């Protein structure tokens, strides 16, 4: 027997990063060594020449949502503000493998967002049209077109929630999350960034309204600027300087099957029946479940959410019946009231905020890393993250992406 193609992944390089002791001070301290934090440090060093940077991670690097997400990458969001930053990100994804010199396995296999009701169809067509005018590839496909792109989708009109069509973004796809994180980390390290693990931030020190240092489990570290990239833990950190955030941290579960021969060539998402699934590079089915309703930092969710997910998945993909659930896990997603992120300055001088990505964080990694680094370097938002201020909740200028984001990644 020969081994099936693609059943194993490219080797990681022989060297990734050092594990230095923290220095007593840095120009910029990034709190949170997830994808966003590491990418931010990378772009600070690479684009802005700011290399005296530390990324502080309380656990292991990229071990939070970066290690737990379902790796879907797309930019077909409804509103101009969102499509701006997500499309910026997608463009960076398209050059990222070369930029980082790391096989991140970015695979533009396309994503289908299914419509199951007449209103879904209207909303989908609306989004496709908006995407196209924003220069984002998007198509509306009918059920026969869905079947052609992904033959295993049940497009029979006789099911409970028939597929009435789908939006399709051909440039969307998946990447391998660890490879992405490690690619950024290795590159950031090579540019002089200190990656410091097992270092929990326990306090933020300010003098006259300006950030001066972070207190950590490994001592005080002085900082010219501090950038928060802590996803679900953002509220806890922001509270250290008396800043309240309009976000709630929820468990979000995901799961994989065992390795299977290729059967699913694209990415399929359905908000109406709460399914999103792709078949990853090695052949495992990767699926996300719905968000657990309650606030939680426990990195665990309730199993009935998984059971509902399975039932919905089998309605759409009857061939999955005898696939096996191999592993389930949960991340902590930071959900904002309008399902859009908060990226920018704060009332505290030198303290920058990046949170509220909810289910959209992974795909935004290069885009927000680049824009957040710009924001930090210039003390001024990048045009792509300018709409995503904290102030919008006061003025009412929300960017309501519930339709495009919802539970789906």
């Amino acid at each position, binding site marked *: *027997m*020969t*081994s*099936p193609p693609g*059943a*194993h*992944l490219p080797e*990681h*390089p*022989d*060297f*990734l990063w050092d*594990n230095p002791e923290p220095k007593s001070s840095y120009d910029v301290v990034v709190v949170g060594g997830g994808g966003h934090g590491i990418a931010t440090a990378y772009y600070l060093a690479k684009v802005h020449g700011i290399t005296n940077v530390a990324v502080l991670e309380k656990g292991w*690097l990229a071990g939070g949502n970066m*290690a737990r997400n379902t790796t879907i990458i797309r930019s077909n969001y409804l509103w*101009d503000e969102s499509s701006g930053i997500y499309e910026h990100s997608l463009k960076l994804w398209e050059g990222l493998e070369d930029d980082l010199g790391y096989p991140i396995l970015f695979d533009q296999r396309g994503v289908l967002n299914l419509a*199951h*009701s007449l209103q879904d*169809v*209207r909303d989908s*067509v*609306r*989004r496709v*049209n*908006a995407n*196209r*005018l*924003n220069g*984002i590839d998007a198509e509306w496909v009918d059920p026969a077109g869905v079947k052609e792109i992904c033959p*295993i989708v049940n497009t029979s009109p006789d099911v*409970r*929630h028939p597929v009435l069509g789908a939006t399709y973004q051909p440039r969307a796809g998946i990447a391998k999350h*660890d490879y992405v994180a490690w690619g950024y980390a290795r590159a950031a390290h090579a540019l002089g960034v200190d990656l410091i*693990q097992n270092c929990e931030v326990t306090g933020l020190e300010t003098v006259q309204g300006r950030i001066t240092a972070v207190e950590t489990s490994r001592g005080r570290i002085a900082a010219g600027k501090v950038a928060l990239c802590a996803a679900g833990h953002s509220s806890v950190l922001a509270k250290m300087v008396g800043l309240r955030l309009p976000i709630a941290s929820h468990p979000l579960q995901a799961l994989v*099957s*065992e*390795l*299977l*021969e290729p059967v699913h060539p694209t990415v399929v998402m359905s908000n109406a029946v709460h399914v999103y699934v792709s078949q990853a590079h090695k052949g495992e089915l990767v699926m996300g479940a719905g968000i657990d309703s309650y606030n939680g930092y426990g990195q665990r969710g309730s*199993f009935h959410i998984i*059971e509902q997910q*399975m*039932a*919905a998945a*089998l*309605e759409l993909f009857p*061939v*999955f*019946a*005898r*696939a*096996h*659930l*191999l*592993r*389930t896990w949960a991340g902590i997603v930071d959900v904002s009231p309008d399902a859009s992120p908060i990226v920018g300055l704060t009332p505290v001088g030198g303290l920058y905020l990046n949170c509220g990505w909810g289910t959209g964080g992974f795909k935004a990694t290069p885009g927000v890393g680049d824009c957040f680094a710009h924001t930090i370097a210039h003390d001024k938002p990048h045009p792509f993250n300018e709409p995503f201020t904290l102030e919008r909740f006061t*003025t*009412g*200028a929300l960017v*309501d992406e519930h339709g495009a984001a919802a539970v789906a990644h």
Partner: protein
Amino acid sequence: MSFRTDTGGAIDRNTLLRFTFNGVEHTGHPGDTLASALLANGVHEIGSSVKLGRPRGVVAAGSEDPTSLVQVEAPFSEPMLLATTVELYDGLVARGLAGQGKLSSEPDPARYDAKHEHCDVLVVGAGPAGLVAALTAARSGARVVLVDEQNQAGGALLGVDEYLDDRPSAEWVADIVAELKSTPDVLVLERTTAFGMYQDGFVLALQKRTDHLGFAAPASVARQRVWRIRTRQTVLATGAHERPVVFADNDRPGIMLASSARTFLHHYGVLPGSRAVVFTTNDSAYCAAIDLAESGVDIAVVVDARPEAPARLAAECAARGIEVRAGQLVTGTEGPGRVTAVQVGDDRIACDALLVSGGWNPVVSLFSQARGTLRYDAELGAFVPGRELATVRVAGSATGELDLTACTRQGRDAGAGAAAAAGFTSGSQVPLPASDSRCTARSGLVLWRVPGNDDASFVDLQRDSTVADVLRATGAGLRSLEHIKRYTTIGTAHDQGKTSGMIAAGIVAEALGVELSEQRPTTFRPPFTSVSFAALAGRDRGDLHDPVRVTSIHPWHVQHGALFENVGQWKRPWYYPQPGEDLHAAVLRECRATRESVGMMDGSTLGKIDVQGRDAGEFLDMLYTNMMSNLKVGKIRYGVMCGVDGMVIDDGTVIRVGEERYIVTTTTGNAAKVLDWMEEWLQTEWPHLDVHCTSVTEHWATIPLVGPKSRAVLAAVAPSLDVSNEAFEFMTWHDTEVAGVPARVCRISFSGELAYEINVTAWHGLAVWEALMAAGERYGITPYGTETMHVLRAEKGYPIIGQETDATVTPQDLGMSWAVSKKKPDFIGKRSFARAENNRSDRKQLVGLLPVDPAVLLPEGSQIVETDRLPEPPVRMLGHVTSSYPSAALGRTFALALVRSGHERIGETLYVPVEDSLVPVTVTESVLYDKEGARRDG
């Protein structure tokens, strides 16, 4: 050549089962697994490895096996099963896998279900500790559930030929099982794996009910069942898995865990080969060597890594002519596929089996899932449960205890403790058995690997991950086991690292020079063993996936050829095509008939909430943007509801049926949400208000009767009702009889036409509908569906919540400032209207659009731009088309749209990109038909 022993094993030798593996026919017996039957036939090569394509065999006898992956092909294809857990049946067809399975494209005919079970004490594992725990708890009177993954109780005892209290251990097991099964409120579940442990004593277990029956499985019995067990106390008696030792070329078929070889011998009557080498770090493998020797296997040598062999066991070996070499190591193997020789020091020893024991790993997965902490036991070389949890006890070898009597004592203590914690006093004590076992596994040497060719020293046999990979990972700067797991992929295969995880941790600790006691093992995640998607979906599929709601008039719609639209869970008639009609033709006909004569629809799905109480008016004043408390009894008012953010969430009519009673209607899709919304405010913010709400949606059948002839039709079926315009004004209601049935008739209109909404109890809905059809026949009464309803309302500029709104639209945006009270001091959402963003003049506002070419139909969802030529993206968009229809009444197409500064743009020409062209449209006000409202009174 057969490797079946002449006697022994829990198999039925009188019955022959035929099966096919990799295209070759073989036979086995009931009681066999696919793995034991293959080994009995001398077949050791099962599949091949995922990355390197090296042959893979059977390493372990149970669910911890890392290698024996097969695809079962018949009776139904299922991927990635372990040959060691597939029970043999006649006609089984299977093939070995190269690490990837294949999904069948055929629909799975099997049924699956789930069952809830509540108990006081759940015992996981029916080995000696679990059996004693369960019996102890059962004798206290507790409700006990005992689950075990194998097809019979016994656990580790199934793999040995030991005597307990001077009789075969099987008899001891059988007695306990018999007593358990005869005790009331005790449930013993075989073939049932507890795979997930969650909070509050919630344990999920998968029972394989008919898999072992193969083709004989009755179709009426669910193939697999998920048990959702809620227990007060849990005893985990999950046992221990034998740990291999890593050395060069340790991955060949024929290399097996020593205890597994012993299990194949005693439980299945199967020999692992003709000539075996045993390699061990502890005493337990001596028993395998002795038992196999006594069964006719030539034990070439026992290689004991310890400096000195245990004297008594060495003597027993000597008595049987088995050579024991202490202080030596297996450093390599040979073979074209299956092992043919083993390197021990300078000696090459020919053999066809190599049996390995590196000690034991307690099975702590469920304990860890339950948030129990683990501690490293240096003597054992494994993580063991740390502090006990309040509701979870661990007993037997799962604790690291490997002496049988001590294990059963732990079982008894745990069973008694669990029962006591659940409120039961202990019953008669279960006696602990005395074992004649010659071998204990303690006092072993902890040995992760034998130095050698790192590239061929496999840590994870399924993932082809080697010692070299681990060292490369640590060399790359990785320190966390989680990182190293990801770098090497160790522990990510189907077995989730059951045999490889501990060794990987050990090798990492050695490489980094750190103590394992300072390392945290990688997280154990559910499920313990894999579970099919179908089993988890259970019965929630097909018709049972999501309930379908239908109205009492539904059969009539079906009979008359309606096509249906899903609205929430409801099936609503979409339109009623006549022969040859498409959607547009049918809808044009339905619209025309309604506006020119009379039509009717089934509006029963509208949400209806009965709001009662002294403060009902005050309450509704807070919920709706307009005033409801000053509505007179007998009158009806349209109302809009907003969220606290000021965005429209629902609309409907409010009718006042009494001084302290209103009936409010909601949109079909929002009925439950609005009731929830009301109750939330009432209970959490305004509990002082005397208001009660209840849903009456299903109680009523609701039939809008619409069009100039509606009055005549109503008069015909409601003789006691004065239907004149003076006696029955617009936005009023009357209780009367319609078709002889008590009815509430409301004069409201969602079409601009003279219209009545007839409400009767749901029981009478169909009869009244049919009576109206009969009475309207002379006027050509026409039933219509949601599409026509949408067109008629759109011609009047009435929005549909969820179609014209998307949670970013205010009443003002919809042109409904008239429905927003200026008088009320407050209502939900009012304060948000004062925010800067709400007062921008360039908000998107609801307007009508008329394509300049009256034949062009704009696609709904189209975007709107300002210029007649598209600039390069990103293009500035002004809004989008929310609704678009051909109109019989207007004799042309039209659309509704949300457009930036729409109210100011009336009269402007804008453009709608449709495919490759730009369609010019004129902006109009949203009311396009009967702007004066002349048709309302008929």
